[in-house]
């Protein structure tokens, strides 16, 4: 039996207080409607949310697991340190801003600037898996980790990613399932076809995706993927002259 919180008519502050106060690790929040910062900074909780949580869901998340049975809004997993967030729907802008570790799975589409400034560190390697499409500036300033864009509902000759992906990227990898031609990538980005080693790297996350949301992992993995990587971890080195 999980600890239940009815979000209807209750301020987010109180919902969060209850999440932190309860000794139960399994928490079910029903009637979420724009409640912000749900689960922010928590560890060791297993939170299931019915409805639509507000911005900054799971910000600074420190090991908890959050499942949303619906859409989520902006700034999901902001500066997330560890844990897992699973969204059975679409998700807004700046998902995974500066996230350092843990996994975020989104069944559907995401907004702008997703994965911005994600970073990895030693054994920490954040992963964002997006089932649908992504808006502009995917992986902007990406400094580490993996962004996996599956584009499942997009015809293979249409790119599932918006404009200006990987702008300022200087670490990590972006994998995009598509056969459509890529144009307009910044000069520091190397575009290549995903190798077997690449696929081996992201296959467990595809399998996890299908486990959560359904679909055929092998079929997805047999498609063509692009790999985007930066050609330098010091993109600004040649930019300056000492004065």
């Amino acid at each position: 039996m999980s600890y239940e919180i009815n979000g209807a008519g209750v301020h987010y502050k109180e919902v969060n207080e209850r999440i932190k106060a309860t000794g139960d690790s399994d928490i079910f929040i029903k009637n979420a409607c724009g409640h912000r910062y749900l689960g922010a900074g928590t560890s060791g909780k297993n939170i299931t949310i019915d409805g639509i949580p507000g911005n900054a869901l799971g910000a600074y998340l420190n090991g908890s697991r959050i499942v949303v049975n619906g859409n989520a809004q902006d700034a999901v997993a902001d500066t997330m340190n560890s844990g897992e967030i699973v969204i059975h729907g679409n998700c807004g802008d700046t998902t995974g801003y500066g996230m350092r570790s843990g996994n975020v799975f989104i069944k559907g589409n995401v907004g702008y600037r997703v994965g911005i400034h994600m970073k990895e560190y030693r054994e920490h390697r954040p992963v964002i898996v997006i089932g649908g499409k992504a808006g502009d500036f995917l992986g902007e300033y990406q400094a580490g980790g993996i962004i996996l864009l599956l584009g499942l509902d997009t015809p293979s000759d249409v790119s599932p990613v918006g404009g200006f992906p990987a702008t300022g990227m200087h670490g990590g990898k972006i994998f995009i399932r598509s056969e459509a031609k890529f144009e307009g990538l910044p000069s520091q980005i190397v575009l290549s076809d995903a190798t077997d080693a690449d696929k081996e790297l992201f296959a467990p996350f595809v399998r996890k995706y299908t486990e959560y949301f359904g679909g055929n992992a092998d079929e997805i993995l047999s498609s063509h993927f692009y790999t985007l990587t930066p050609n330098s971890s010091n993109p600004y080195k040649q930019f300056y002259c000492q004065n």
Partner: protein
Amino acid sequence: MAINYIPANFDVVRDHTRCIKCRVCERQCSNEVHYYDEELDTMLCNETDCVDCQRCVSLCPTKALKILPNENRFRKNVNWRQQLMVEAYKQAETGGILLSAMGNPEEFPIYWDKLLLNASQVTNPSIDPLREPMETRVFLGKKSNEVKYDSEGDLVLSNTAPHLELSTPIMFSAMSYGSISYNAHASLAKASKELGIFYNTGEGGLHKDFYEYGPNTIVQVASGRFGVHKDYLDTGAAIEIKIGQGAKPGIGGHLPGAKILEDVSRTRMIPMGTDAISPAPHHDIYSIEDLRQLVLSLKEATEYKKPVIVKIAAVHNVAAIASGVARSGADIIAIDGFRGGTGAAPTRIRDNVGIPIELALAQADFRLREEGIRDNVSLVVGGSIRCSTDAVKAVALGADAVYIGTAALLALGCHLCRDCQRGLCNWGIATQKPELVKRLNPEIGYKRLVNIVHAWDHEIKELMGGMGINSIEALRGNRLMLRGVGLNEVELELLGVKHAGTAI
């Protein structure tokens, strides 16, 4: 190739009658200026690389060295100053953005130097701080705007907003581990604890060794989110969201990969050798509402126990921005003036963007008062506060406290050679090279920081006593204690002070 020859800035003058060829200068110079020539049995130098940090001069046992400006000058030209010509040559050679360090050194007005303080004479007598209690303690954070009494008529403390308590209205401003050394941070942390004030991690994370100084630490959250995690937020006494910096308003920061060695990498939680890039804006903040979201997410993550500071650079529209920030849920606004220091900033931006802190502070204070929200926030100013009188004048212009960065570094041995960006600081401050870092002894460093702040605190009390004020709170925004000299009407109006000679 002669076309790319840049003349040395300095002449290294050695008195060979004094020099004993002990080679201390050679060992001390990370720029490799001095060297010993065995054939000639003499010390020679390559002055081109000299940055005038005064390390060799300070340590020469026979005082045989002097660093002077190079007298070889280009033809004098008021418009095309030599510095501009040299910069043109450098850019023609490299195609790069000019990079400098420390605060704007150019000739812009310094309003602190054009403001004079009042003192009591005959009536309203001055107070002797050696004899009378003087209060320089301040509390930073939202102040309650209502007074409540219970049925017994006793005062009810209704203000539950979190505060910072400072023994004196001075804090060490944000300087990241990475831009400055471990030993510099150790000095700042230890001094803050002893002084009962705060230092600021900057956007470099908090080294595990310094968690014990958490109650005297302000942890910063900036656009790159380096080192930001739950424990870090929980450890600090306050959280500062960095929106802007006086030395480089409107742009982000790049800590070059070369400075990201093992320890810095662990503290920032990023890989070694990778550039640490803080994007110019927070890409999730495009409005005051968005700022509010970050403020509240930090408060939510730390259970509303810590005040949140929002640091902005002093720019043209600073008063309106401060008003917005005051409505964002922030408890403290820090404003950084255009003279503020930096470990590295594009020269053109450092020297041309932003406005003087004196004007920014006066205008922000006016605006917040005008809108009746001054007590919703505390105001902290920096960039640059050079001495106790700058601090006192800042308080009289409306500040609750000041941030000092450069002055603190001077206490640690900095000689303002303004070459931090190369990471070769001979004084062990702005460097990550172990052989240089160890030159700064944190035990000595921290005592010098304690000394300078104590000295300023004494001076502040003397100045307050002279004005007949025994509590720094009574000086805050007290512009009657200020008079301008040599300022025009617009400047006086913006500052809200009368010209010297005008009676009360």
